């Protein structure tokens, strides 16, 4: 591969830039996790509190930067990118949807059904 000096300076700069982004996102998560602002905790959007939405979105953003920058996914061919990312994304969406809906249903049966499980 052609690696000239200019490209390398760019690569090192990108690494530190991504480290900055990942640190910043983690710090934001930790601060929010410690102070837990009332507004975010007690307001829901699609059955999930705003705070949890923020946590999950920031996590996915971090995952993007780790995969794209650190694992050099941005330099791989589109075919490889799709092979890895689409497989994961589709299966995970399916898994989460079915397991969480089922978990919620069982919780509903425990709470409102004719079963006593606190005796």
């Amino acid at each position: 591969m052609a690696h000239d000096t200019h490209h390398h300076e760019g690569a090192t700069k990108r690494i530190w830039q991504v480290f900055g982004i990942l640190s910043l996102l983690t710090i934001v998560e930790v601060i929010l996790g410690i102070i837990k602002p009332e507004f975010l905790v007690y307001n829901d959007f699609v059955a999930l509190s705003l705070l949890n939405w923020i946590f999950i979105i920031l996590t996915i953003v971090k995952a993007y930067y780790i995969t794209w920058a650190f694992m050099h996914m941005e330099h791989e061919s589109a075919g490889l990118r799709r092979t890895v990312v689409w497989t994961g994304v589709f299966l995970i969406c399916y898994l989460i949807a079915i397991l969480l809906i089922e978990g919620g249903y069982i919780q509903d049966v425990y709470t409102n059904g004719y079963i006593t499980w606190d005796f």
Partner: protein
Amino acid sequence: MDTTAVAQTGTEGKTWGGGNQPLKASYGKLMMWFFITSDALTFSGFLAAYGFSRFKFINEWPIADEVFNHFPFLHGTDAPMYYVALMTFILIFSSVTMVLAVDAGHRMQKSKVVTYMALTILGGAIFLGSQAWEWKNFIKGEYGAVETTSGKILQFVDADGKRVDIEAFTPVAERTRTTHEAKNGLWYASESELIAYDIEDLKTAFKQDENLLVRTMQLNERGEKTVLDREESVKVLDETGKSIILGANLSNNEYGAPLFADFFFFITGFHGFHVLSGVLILIIVFFNVLIGTYEKRGSYEMVEKVGLYWHFVDLVWVFVFTFFYLV
């Protein structure tokens, strides 16, 4: 130019000999990506199962801030999140040194690869030690609790709602025997450590101290654990209290649902095992760099491949961190 680790395989350009690179990545890197994909699905399965169990017991699940609130050398202070945030930074930083090592490898700078890989190994080792310490605190527990006949957990608070250690109010009772140890008795028989008081002592002491209240696993609509009033506390403890729980293990957990402990041990343990194997592979590659294997080969692709694995371990931790400590 081709960057495969082996200079010539004799299969270049042959469609069925592995010489083709339809995805423009070498065989080794491609296989590492496929392994990572399957491992990512494994972890997704674990975390989704955790989500399933949590949704099942959504109103009884332990509050992570109360479970993981220790920091080294700060005894008794409530420090949620700080320690795990530190662990996260250690792992992210070791990822940065790893990618710097890969970058130095592209430029064929052996000494830089050595330095950055050494730092990565150090980061991984510190992370493993931190995780061991986290486990130790979780297993040891802090305040102790009582398990009820239906397997629920009762914790104790004072009138202000502050947690009370069961050892603080239960007096040590007279005991006629000591714990059986394998070295002093039958080597094939074992029993758990006898504590200096039992559930009956605890119930008696609880009745005498008017200040104490029982806190159940149940979360109220504000997401806080329910505290019973005095009369009900005495009644519930007396009627349902079955045994004393100290700390957490695979079958009991003083912090709440035993499933929480099971998933914590399993998922962080499985991740820790990945970190451990990552450190071992890094050490092997590190020595290969030192003796100049990749210099001779003309390519540091092996560093790149172990780097992919190491970043993946970091990636998994980002999700474990979110779902165990934040959400």
